[in-house]
C-alpha cells in the first residue's frame, strides 16, 4: 500500500498540472494552456518535460473547469489500483536533464525516413533571408496551417506581396500565378528522392511523410516547377 501512495504522490508531483497557480513575479507562473503548446524541442527543461514522463497525461487535455474534478477522479482511481504498473514512469527518473532527451529524439526522427516519430523537424530556408528556421510538420494539420506559420516566420524578409497583416497570402490560388510570374516567393520542398517539388501537390499526410527540407524560392526560379501548379489552377478555375 505504501508503494501505491508513493506512486500516486509521484503522479501528483507534476506541478504543471495545477491550473490556478499564482507565482510571484519573476518566477514565471505558467498557465496550462501555454504549457501544452510548448512541447517542441525548444530545449525547455523541467516541468514541460515532466509532462512527457508522467502517467496522468489525460489531465493536460482537459478544460480548465473540469481539471479539479478530474484530479479527484484520478485520485480515487489510483487508490483502487492493486499494484503499480512495473513500467510506470516516475517524475525525474532516471535523472537525465530534459534537454539531453530532447536532442536525441530529434536526431532519431531526422535519421528515419519521413520522420515516423513524434516530431518531424525540417529546415526551412528562404532565399535572401540571413538564417534558416525549423518547423515541426507534425504540428500542422494542413497546408494552410503551414503557410500561415511560414508567412509569420519570414514576414520580415519577404519582398513579395503581403496582405494587410504582413502575411504572405499563399492560400489564394489566383495569386499563385502572380507569384510565379513576379519576384514573389514560392514554397518548395525536397522529397525523399532528393527532388525539389512544389508544395501543395500531394495530400498533406503524404507531404509530411516525404518532405525532408523546405525552401521558399524566388518565384522566378520556381518557373520549372510551376507548370504543374498552373495546370492545377487551370483545372480548378
Amino acid at each position, binding site marked *: 500500500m505504501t508503494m501505491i501512495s*508513493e506512486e500516486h*504522490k*509521484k503522479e*501528483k*508531483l*507534476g*506541478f504543471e498540472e*495545477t491550473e*490556478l*497557480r499564482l*507565482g*510571484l513575479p*519573476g*518566477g*514565471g*507562473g*505558467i498557465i496550462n494552456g501555454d504549457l501544452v503548446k510548448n512541447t517542441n*524541442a*525548444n*530545449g525547455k*527543461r*523541467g*516541468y514541460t*518535460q*515532466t509532462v512527457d*514522463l508522467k502517467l496522468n497525461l489525460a489531465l493536460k487535455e482537459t478544460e480548465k473547469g473540469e481539471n*479539479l474534478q478530474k484530479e479527484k477522479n484520478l485520485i480515487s482511481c489510483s487508490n483502487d489500483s492493486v499494484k503499480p504498473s*512495473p*513500467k510506470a*514512469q*516516475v*517524475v*525525474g*527518473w*532516471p*535523472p*537525465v*536533464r*530534459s*534537454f*539531453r*532527451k530532447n*536532442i*536525441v529524439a*530529434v*536526431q*532519431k526522427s*531526422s*535519421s528515419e525516413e519521413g520522420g515516423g516519430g513524434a516530431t518531424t523537424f525540417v*529546415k526551412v*530556408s528562404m532565399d535572401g533571408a*540571413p*538564417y*534558416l*528556421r*525549423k518547423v515541426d510538420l507534425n504540428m500542422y494539420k494542413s497546408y494552410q496551417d503551414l503557410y500561415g506559420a511560414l508567412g509569420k516566420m519570414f514576414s520580415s524578409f519577404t519582398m513579395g506581396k503581403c496582405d494587410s497583416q504582413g502575411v504572405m497570402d499563399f492560400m489564394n490560388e489566383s495569386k499563385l500565378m502572380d507569384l510565379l510570374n513576379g519576384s514573389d516567393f514560392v514554397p518548395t520542398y*525536397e522529397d525523399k528522392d*532528393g527532388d525539389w517539388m512544389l508544395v501543395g501537390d500531394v495530400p498533406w499526410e503524404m507531404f509530411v511523410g516525404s518532405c525532408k*527540407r523546405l*525552401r521558399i524560392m524566388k518565384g522566378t526560379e520556381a518557373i520549372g516547377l510551376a507548370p504543374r501548379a498552373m495546370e492545377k489552377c487551370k483545372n480548378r478555375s
Partner: protein
Amino acid sequence: MSEDEELPDLGGGATPNSNSTVVSIGGGDQNYVSPGPDQVLENVLENVLCFLTSRRDRNAASLVCKSWYRAEALTRSELFIGNCYSVSPRRVTNRFRLIKAIAIKGKPRFSDFSLLPPDWGAHFAPWLRAMAISYRALEKLYLKRMCVRDEDLAIAAHSFPILKELVLVCCEGFGTDGLAIVARECRQIRVLELMDSVIRDNEVDWISCFPEDVTCLESLIFDCVEAPINFEVLERLVARSPSLKKLMLNSYISITQLYRLMIRAPQLTHLGTGSFSPLEIVAQGEHEPDYFSAFAACKSLICLSGFKEIIPEYLSAIYPVCGNLTSLNLSYANISAEQLKPVIRQCHKLQTFWALDSVSDEGLQAVSAACKDLRELRVFPVEALEDAEGPVSEVGLLAISEGCRKLQSILYFCHRMTNAAVVAMSKNCPDLVVFRLCIMGRHMPDHVTGEPMDEGFGAIVKNCKKLTRLAVSGLLTDRVFNYIGQYGKLLRTLSVAFAGNTDLGLKYLLEGCPKLQKLEIRDSPFGDSALFAGLHHYYNMRFLWLSACKVTRQGCKEVARQLPGLVVEVIAWNEEENGTSEDVDTLYLYRSLDGPRADAPRLMVRPSLIMLGKALFNYRAGFPLAALKISPSSCGFHALAVEPSPAA
C-alpha cells in the same frame, strides 16, 4: 608568534586613529600621527591577504580575530555564495566592499529533474539590486541555477560598466532579448558563456548587437541557445576577434558554416561544432569544403564538443586534431562503436570523454585501449527509460577500469551492473574523486548474482580514499549506508534514490560522514528519527534534500524548533477534506543567517510550500507572530504560508 589578541570591538567601523599616539618629532610636522599597532597590523594584513586567493583560506583567516576579519573583508575580491538563500544580499555587500568577481548558486540540483515547482525561487533580482549599488566595479559574474530575467540582464549591463565575464549555467527566465542587451551594452565583455540554460527565443538577432568596434572577445559559448543565428554577422564577429579561444555554436549552425568560422579562427582552443551536419539548401553540384584541412589548421584545438545533429560520415574530418585533444564531448552524437573507434584510437592524450551509450561496451573497450590518460568519463543514455535493454553494462565499466587507471571522475548510466565490476573499479582506479553510477531500473540488483549492490559501492568508499562525491543506485539495503558512514570520511556530496530499508540508513550517513555538505535523497524510507540524527551536523551543511521519504510535518517542525539557524522548507500535501495531513513530500533544509525567505511562492492549490524557521521558533516561544495563515480557498484547498515575524 603572533601578537594578536582579541581586540576590542571598535564599534564595527574602522577607526584608525583611536589607538594611535601623538608623537612630536622635534622640529617636524606636528600633525604627524604615528599609526598605532593595530593599524600597522591592518596595513600589513591587507598587503599580505591580497595574496590569499583560496576562499577556504580566507574564511579561516577571517576567524582569527576581529582585526583580521575586517582586513580580510576589505581585501577579498572574489566571492562565492553556494546557496543564494543562506545569506541576504545586503549582509554580503555590507561586509565585502571590494568584490570584482562573484559566483552565486540557487536551486538545489534535483530541480533539474522537475522536482520543484517552476516558480520556486532563486531570483537574481534581489542580488542584482544590492550589487548594482555596491559592486559597480564588478568584472566577473557567474550564476548557476538562478532565475534571471531580461530586465536583470539589462540592469546588470548598465550597472557594471567594466563587466568582462558573464557565465550563466542552468539558468532560466531570460531570452534573446536579454542577450541582445548584454551584447550591445557590455563593451568590455570578453567572456559570454551560456551553458545548459533555457533561453527564450524572442526572435531577436542578438549577435548583431555586438558593436563593430568590440574586438576583445575571448570566449563565446551559446550552444544551448535554441534560436537561429545571423551567420554573416557571426562570421564578421569571429573575424574581428583575434583573442577568441573558445567558441561553441548551437545546432542552427551547419557544418559548412562551421568551416567558414574555423578558417577565420585557427587559434581556437575550445570548439563546439554546432549541428555538424551539412546544409543542402544550396544548389546541388556545389563542392563541399575541405573540412579536414580546416581542422588541420587549428593547431591549438584541445577541446571539441557539439555534434548536435551529427552525420557520422563527417566525423573523419576531426582526425587531424585527435592527437592533441584533451577533451571530447560526443554526448549528443548517436554513434555506434564502429563509428567511434577510428576517432578514439587517435585520442591518446584524452583526459575528458563524454559519450552516449550508443557506443556500447565495445566502444568503451576502445576508449580503454586508447585513452590511458583518461581522468573523466561520462556515459549518458540514448533512451532514458527504465525498462530498456541498454547497450552498456558492467563489461564497459570493467574495461574502463582496466585501461584507464588514472580515472578521477565517472558518471555512468546503464541498465545492468554487477558488484564485481564496481569492486574492480574501486581497486583499479584508486584516484577516484567522483563516482556516480546510475542503474536506471529502480531497485535493480546485481544482474548476475541477484544480490543488492551494497558490496560494490562499499568497495568504492573503502578503496577510493580520495572520494568526495558519490551517487548510488540499484537495489541497496541499509548496509551500503553503513559502509559509507564507516569509510566515507571525505565525502562531501551524496545522491541517493530508491535505496535503504530503515531509518538506520540515514543515521549511518549523518553520524559517520563528518564532511558531508550536500545530501540529496529521494524515494527512500527514511523518517523523523533519522532526521533527528543529523541535528548535530546540519549547521555544517550546504543543504539536505529529502523527497518522497517518510519524514512528517511534525518532524520537520521539531528540527526547525531545535535549530533556529536553519530554514526548513517543506512541500506537503493537504488532503482537502481531512485538514492538513502529516505527509511531507519534499523537505529542503539549509542554514541561513537571515531566516526564511520572503519570496517563497504561495501555492493556492496543493501542494503547498511551507517555510519553517526562526518564525516558527518565535511562535512557539509565544512572541507576536508570524503570519501562520490557513485560508481555505473557494475550492476547498488550503494554502499555508509562514512569513518572518516583523518583531524577530
